[in-house]
């Protein structure tokens, strides 16, 4: 029996939308409750993915395959593998927390706010589970509009500027990706990712070096803007700072990973030659991002902006790990994506709680907060330590795997990147010191209430996740292992296929045989698929 689990997970949040629409606009309590229930149900259902997931199988699981626009070769094709599995879970985990943290912070147009959050959840999950290039693009663009409204309507200060900058930056990248997708369709005759991969591996389609580089460039640009990779990062501090807390959590927690996920899913397996050729440049940019992001974070006077810049630094690690092309570094990159989602999401939640009390992000407005709010600030310290990669917390595992993986192939890169780990200790601890320790400097802060029950619940959940990811990391890496191995093998196979055809003596015979084998294989695959539903 074919499984529809992924469809259910991808579309369940959308079911909440009509439910919310039916409620009266001023019935805030029920709007919040229903949104929370939907997102919790979503998280519960997504846990079934873990149960059915076969960690030995490197391919896509829970596949669903239907025609959507048959004449144009567009299919509804979903599936997860070890790379996307945990990103889906990260999304379903963070969304209820984002809803909880907006419980009291949002007063205006509450209905619209929660609808936007649910739509964004659907879109992000859609991106992670789509195996059809056009379906992927569809969800990719769908993430933009709700986030645009989240920033623009419920954001702070310069929200309009930030919202427009965010959407224009991302669109510019993605439209070129669309052209590349269409071009790839012209070459491969399908939008189906596994099909294209198979055709590339068997040499059925060969990308000339220049074409490959252009296609890689178009995809990479879209993803690099999203990540964001230095020097394309300038939209990020604005968007993160001006967004409401829930928006920042979603943005930093999940949306940035859409970019790094895209690199893993498309740039590497489809264009390995170009990826290898561009890797030195990308590695250097990633390292600049790590160091630059950390240094700029150090000098921020605005707490939220500081946290925003840490993302530039941490995501630099992820990109570095991906383009070091070793199993360990790529696993580290995926792990770092998850742990950054948790840690930075938690940091934004903490900053949001401070904002709810004082309505400012200025560091100098705070100071000595440990005195009035011991519980909140203890959690805050714990989260900061996780973000600066203290062993045995989650941040450490990711950075460590990335660094040893990178060291295997590039000693210098690893050395430079390691300095980022030191800098992160500086900016986070220094910021914490200025906010938390010492005497209370601003009189208003003396009587701030400590964390409420709801806030304790949010922070404690995050703390548990942080510890769990730190000590139980093999539970994660074990499930990533075979998919990352197979990713690197795929890259090799595609490169071999193109090299073989480049040397004429070997070309004719071998490719002929493989072509036939592949045709048989794909015929079987297709017949299987037709029978299934």
């Amino acid at each position: 029996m074919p499984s529809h689990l992924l469809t259910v997970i991808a579309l369940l949040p959308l079911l909440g939308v009509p439910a919310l629409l039916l409620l009266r606009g001023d019935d805030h309590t029920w709007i919040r409750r229903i949104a929370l229930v939907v997102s919790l149900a979503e998280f519960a259902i997504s846990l079934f993915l873990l149960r059915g997931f076969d960690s030995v199988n490197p391919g896509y699981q829970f596949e669903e395959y239907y025609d959507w626009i048959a004449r144009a070769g567009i299919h509804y094709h979903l599936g997860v593998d070890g790379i996307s599995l945990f990103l889906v879970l990260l999304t379903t985990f963070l969304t209820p927390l984002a809803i909880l943290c907006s419980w009291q912070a949002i007063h205006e147009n509450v209905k619209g706010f929660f609808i936007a959050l649910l739509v964004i959840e659907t879109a992000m999950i859609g991106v992670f589970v789509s195996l059809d290039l056009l379906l992927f693009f569809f969800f990719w663009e769908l993430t933009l509009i709700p986030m645009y409204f989240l920033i623009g309507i419920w954001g702070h200060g310069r929200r309009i500027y930030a919202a427009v900058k965010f959407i224009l930056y991302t669109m510019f990248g993605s439209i070129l990706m669309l052209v590349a997708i269409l071009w790839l369709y012209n070459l491969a005759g399908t939008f189906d990712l596994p099909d294209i991969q198979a055709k590339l591996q068997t040499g059925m389609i060969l990308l000339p070096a220049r074409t490959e580089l252009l296609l890689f460039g178009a995809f990479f640009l879209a993803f690099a803007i999203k990540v964001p990779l230095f020097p394309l990062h300038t939209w990020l501090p604005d968007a993160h700072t001006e967004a409401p807390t829930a928006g920042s959590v979603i943005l930093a927690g999940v949306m940035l990973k859409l970019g790094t996920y895209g690199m893993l899913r498309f740039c590497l397996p489809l264009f390995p030659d170009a990826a290898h050729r561009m890797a030195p440049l990308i590695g250097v940019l990633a390292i600049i991002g790590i160091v630059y992001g950390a240094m700029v974070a150090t000098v921020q006077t605005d707490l939220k902006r500081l946290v925003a810049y840490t993302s530039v630094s941490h995501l630099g690690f992820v990109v570095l790990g991906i383009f070091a092309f070793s199993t360990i570094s790529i696993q580290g990159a995926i792990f770092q994506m998850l742990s950054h989602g948790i840690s930075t999401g938690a940091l934004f939640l903490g900053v949001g709680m401070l904002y709810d009390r004082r309505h400012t992000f200025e560091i100098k407005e705070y100071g000595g907060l440990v005195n009035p709010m011991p519980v909140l600030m203890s959690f805050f310290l714990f989260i900061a330590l996780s973000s600066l990669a203290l062993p045995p917390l989650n941040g450490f595992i990711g950075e460590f795997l990335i660094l040893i993986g990178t060291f295997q192939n590039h000693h210098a890169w690893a050395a430079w990147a390691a300095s980022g780990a030191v800098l992160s200790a500086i900016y986070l601890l220094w910021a914490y010191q200025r906010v938390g320790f010492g005497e209370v400097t601003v009189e208003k802060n003396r009587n701030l209430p400590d964390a409420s029950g709801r806030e304790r619940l949010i922070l404690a959940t995050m703390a548990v996740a942080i510890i769990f990811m730190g000590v139980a990391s093999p539970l994660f890496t074990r499930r990533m292992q075979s998919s990352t191995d197979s990713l690197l093998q795929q890259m090799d196979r595609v490169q071999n296929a193109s090299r073989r055809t480049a040397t004429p003596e070997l070309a004719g015979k071998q490719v002929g045989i493989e072509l036939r084998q592949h045709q048989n294989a794909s015929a079987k695959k297709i017949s299987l698929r037709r029978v299934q539903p």
Partner: protein
Amino acid sequence: MTPFPSEQIENFHRLAPEIILCAFGIVIMVADAFVQAAHKRALGWLAFIGALGGLLGVHFMAHDPGNAYSNLIRADSFSIFVHLVVMGAAALAILGSFNYLDEENIQRGEYYALVLFATAGMGILAGANELVTAFIGLEMSSISTYVLAGFRRKAIKSNEASLKYFVLGSFATAFFLYGIAMVYGATGTTRIDLIADALQKMMADQGQVASLAILGLALMFVGLGFKVVVAPFQVYAPDVYEGSPTPVTALLASGPKAATFAVMLRIFYVSFGTAGNFWFWAVWISAVLTMIVGNFAALVQTNVKRMLAYSSIAHAGYILVAFAAGTDIGIAAVLFYLAAYALMKIGAFLVIAHLGQPGEKRLEITDYAGLGGRQPVLAICFSLFLLSLLGLPATGGFLGKLFAFQAALDSKVVWLVVIAAINSVIGAYYYLRVIVAMYFWEPSKEYLPSKVAPTLAFALAIAAVGTLYLGIFPARVLELAKVAADSIYLR
């Protein structure tokens, strides 16, 4: 009694939409003299029924395809597709006009009659198999729309629009006519399919196409390019679109564009398609210019109606991208685009018509501030149309662009697609600016929202649902477009 010749019945069937539309138009003209001013709206309903009757006429066409009136008219799938677009556009525009005309105090029968005559002209354009017939269709639709553009007689802008459209439009049709004469001189025929044969023979005999024929095509491109508003013949459009009564603008931006692109497809693809793609670069350059002029000019507009006028220039550019493909995939892409475009553009202009309030006073972007809070449903509809014009997934506009790009890439027209893609991001800025105003700005205090009339709401609902339908379940319409594309070459 002599039996009615079956040939005549066939002719009637194949021209049924136009016959029905003109009949209703004449009835309205006559009835206008007897209907009291208070009941003029009944004539509007009659016109709406006429437009639906036109759609029924398409049904006759579909059941009896072939050539009519000594091969002057072709009733093929292509013509049927364009008929559906044009008449759907007319029906929506009529629905959107009722309250507008009341508000402007110009509720009169001839308005509706002219809309029907214009639509009949567009229908003839879509089905023309002969250049002089195409010319007649062009004139029929043009002259009716010249009058419609000036229908707010007391408004100076409307007068200016009408006059400008008339003078420049006449000039353009003259170009078209001159082009026909030259092609006739070169090939000895004005029939679209026979021109193809003559040119092919010319190629075989002399190895090239006579320069007279190419010059003729160039002149026709000028004339038709004026009507579909492509650069460098776009200069008149912003003024005319801005000055015309807004429901008329909705019609102008959708119907004539679709019909004229249809006849362009027939002339360029069928007549001149077999003789080599020598028009390719003309279309390429025109497409680039059109997109750039349209988008960059729209960036600096503060008047939303004028901004949408420039946006429709930009969209003509995207359609030309598909046009440049030169294949049947390209035709299908153009047709799909036209259908999606008509829905979203009419929807957008009808929203503007409503929000303009009497005298079309409220057209500035600042007038849209805070609309999202004041009139949420209307704002959502408008956002949908704008996002579709922008080309965001799940809307017809996205798939229209997608198929256009796909068709062009299929013909290896890569750089044009890249330019178009970058242009569509530039376009994003000005569409989003309206959404910013509607949702992110504080509403102005003195604005009193007026109620959306049921007829207008119905028209908007159709446009919105259609836009989403084309964006999510495009398979059927795409299938029709492909069949239509194939039918154009059949003899």
